[in-house]
C-alpha cells in the first residue's frame, strides 16, 4: 500500500501545509507498513525538495518540465495518476485546499479511486479502509469506508502536526509521458497581493462581526491581528455590507478555517458562522451580550465592549512580544 503525496509549490517554495501533508502521508504509510513517495510538479530547487525528506518522504519525484509551471487541474491529475500507477501507490494524499479540490475529483475518476475529502485525522481503520470526515458543515462527523483499490485522502489544513526528523531522501527526475495538451483555457489577468498572511494559512485569526458597529472601528482589530502575527477575518453581514472584503468572510458559505486560535469580536455565533470556524483549536469570544451563542463554542470569553477591550489586548500582546 505505497503512499503517494502530491506536494504543491508556491513560486518554487513549499509551506507549512506541505509539511503537514508529508507528515500525514508518513503516518498513514506507517499504519499500512509501507513507504512514502512525494511528487512535486513544476520548478522547485533541490534544497527545497530535500525538505520533503525531513518530514518522512523516502523518495521524491520532481516533474519539472517548463510547461508544468502553470497550474492546470487536468494536466496535474494526469501527471499524478501516471506517478501513482508507476509507483504502485494505493493511497494518494493531497491537500484539501483550492488546488486539491480541483485535482482530487479528477484523479478519482481517472483511477476509479474513492475520495475521503477533508479528513482531519488518521484513518480509523485499514481494513475496511475507514476515514473520519466532517459532514453537515461540522454538525456531524462521518466514518467513510473507501471501497476502491486505490484511495485518495484530501487533508484539511492545520489538522495534523508536521513532524521533522533529518533524513536524506533520494530525488529523482520524473519524466512525464502523459500527453499534456496545452490548456484551452486562457488566462487574461492575475491579481495577487503579496506579503499578506493568507486566512487559510494563518495560525491566529482575529475576526469581527456586526458588533464592531462600523467599518471605521476596525483599526484596533487589525492591530491586534498584526501584533499576534495573524490574519483578519469577518462574519457574513460584515462582508455583505462591504465593511470588509469578501475574501475575509468565514462561515459556511465563506472560508472554512481551522486556526490554532480564532478570536471572534462582536460576532454572535450563528450556526452558519460556527460552521466555518468550529474546527479551530481554541475559540475566544468578545461580545457585549453574555447570552450570545458564540460563548457556547468558545473556551475563553470576555463580556465587554470591543472598543475598550481591543486596545488593552493590543497593549498586552506588545508587552509579551517585547
Amino acid at each position, binding site marked *: 500500500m505505497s503512499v503517494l503525496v502530491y506536494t504543491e509549490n508556491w513560486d518554487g517554495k513549499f509551506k507549512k501545509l506541505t509539511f503537514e501533508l508529508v507528515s500525514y502521508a508518513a503516518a498513514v504509510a506507517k499504519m499500512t507498513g509501507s513507504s512514502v513517495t512525494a511528487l512535486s510538479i513544476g520548478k522547485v530547487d533541490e534544497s527545497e525538495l530535500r525538505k520533503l525528506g525531513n518530514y518522512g518522504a523516502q523518495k521524491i519525484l520532481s516533474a519539472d518540465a517548463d510547461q508544468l509551471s502553470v497550474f492546470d487541474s*487536468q494536466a496535474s*491529475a494526469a501527471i499524478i495518476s501516471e506517478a501513482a500507477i508507476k509507483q504502485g501507490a494505493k493511497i494518494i494524499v493531497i491537500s484539501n485546499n*483550492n488546488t486539491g*479540490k*480541483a*485535482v*482530487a*475529483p*479528477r484523479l*478519482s*475518476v*481517472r483511477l476509479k479511486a*474513492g*475520495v475521503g*475529502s*477533508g479528513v482531519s485525522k488518521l484513518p480509523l481503520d485499514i481494513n475496511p479502509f475507514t476515514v473520519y470526515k*466532517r*459532514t*453537515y458543515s*461540522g*454538525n*456531524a*462527523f*462521518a466514518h*467513510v*469506508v473507501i*471501497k*476502491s483499490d486505490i484511495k485518495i485522502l484530501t487533508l484539511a489544513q492545520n489538522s495534523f502536526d508536521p513532524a521533522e526528523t533529518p533524513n536524506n531522501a533520494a530525488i529523482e527526475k520524473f519524466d512525464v509521458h502523459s500527453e499534456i495538451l496545452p490548456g*484551452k*483555457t*486562457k488566462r*487574461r*489577468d*492575475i*491579481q*495577487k*497581493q503579496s506579503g*499578506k498572511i493568507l486566512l*487559510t494559512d494563518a495560525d*491566529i485569526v482575529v475576526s469581527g462581526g456586526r458588533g464592531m458597529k462600523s467599518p471605521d472601528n476596525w483599526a484596533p482589530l487589525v492591530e491586534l491581528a498584526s501584533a499576534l502575527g495573524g490574519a483578519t477575518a469577518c462574519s457574513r453581514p460584515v462582508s455583505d455590507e462591504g465593511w470588509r472584503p*469578501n475574501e475575509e468572510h468565514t462561515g*459556511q*458559505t465563506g472560508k472554512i478555517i481551522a486556526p490554532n*486560535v480564532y478570536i471572534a469580536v462582536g460576532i454572535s455565533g450563528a450556526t*452558519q458562522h460556527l460552521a466555518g470556524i468550529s474546527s479551530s*483549536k*481554541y475559540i475566544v*469570544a468578545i461580545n457585549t451580550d453574555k447570552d450570545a451563542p458564540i*460563548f*457556547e463554542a*468558545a*473556551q*475563553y*470569553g*470576555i463580556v465587554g465592549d470591543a472598543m*475598550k*477591550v481591543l486596545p488593552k*489586548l493590543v497593549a*498586552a500582546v506588545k508587552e*509579551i512580544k517585547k
Partner: protein
Amino acid sequence: MKILVCISNVPDTTTKIKLAEGNSTIDTAGIQWVINPWDELSLTRALELRDDAASGIKSVTVAHVGPASSEPVIRKALAIGADEAIRVNANSPDAYYVAAQLAEVIKKEQFDIIFCGIESSDYNGSLVGGMISEFLGIPSASGVSGIKIENGTAVVTRDIDGGKEILEMPVPFVAVVQKGIAKEPKIAAMRGIMLARTKQIKVYEPSAVEPLTNISVFEKPAPRSACRFIDAENPGQLIDLLRNEAKVI
C-alpha cells in the same frame, strides 16, 4: 448557449442535526429541505445571464439526482425561473455515483456551461463538479466567484491563494462555484410558483455505476469545554492564558 445548474437538496442551514437508526443516518423528521446554498447562487447568476439578451444564453436547466420525494426542491428551482428540469431517479450514495449520473445526462442533453456548487452543505465533499469535468474530459474552473459573457466568450473570475485570476473558458466547461457569483439568491415570485406547478420534470433512470465509498456511521462532534470568562477590566489575562495555558500565541 445552454446552461445546466446541478442542484442538491440539503437540510436548511440552521438545522440541528440529530442522528437516527443506530447513528447510521440523520433523523430527517422535521427537516426543512432547501437548495444547496452555492447551487442556489449559481442558479441566480445563470438566470441573470439568460435574462440579459446580449449574453447569448438561451435557457437554464436544473438537474438533480434524487428520489421522487426530492421533487419539491426541483419545483422551487423552476419557480425561481429555471426553464427545464431533469431528475435522475436514484439515491445519492456518494459523489462518484452522482457525478457519473450527471455526466450521462450532460452527454445526452448537451450543455455549454455547467454550474456546480463548490460543495454540498451535507457531505461537504467538494467533489462532484471536478468529477463531472473529468468524466466528460472538459476543462473546469474551480473557486469561481464571478462569470460574464463577452461577445460569446465566457469570462470567469476565480479565487486563488491570495488573489484572483480572470480566465477565458472554452465551452463546454464546468464552473465550480463559490460565494460571490451572485449577491443574493433570487426568490420565487407568485407567478413563477404557479408556472412551476405545471412544468414537466424530465426523469431519467440511473446508469449502472458502483459507488466507491459509503458512510458506515455518523458521530456528533465532541462537546467543547465550558467557556472560561475573563474580566473585561483586565483583558491582559486572556493573553496570558493563550500563551501559558493554551500555548497558541
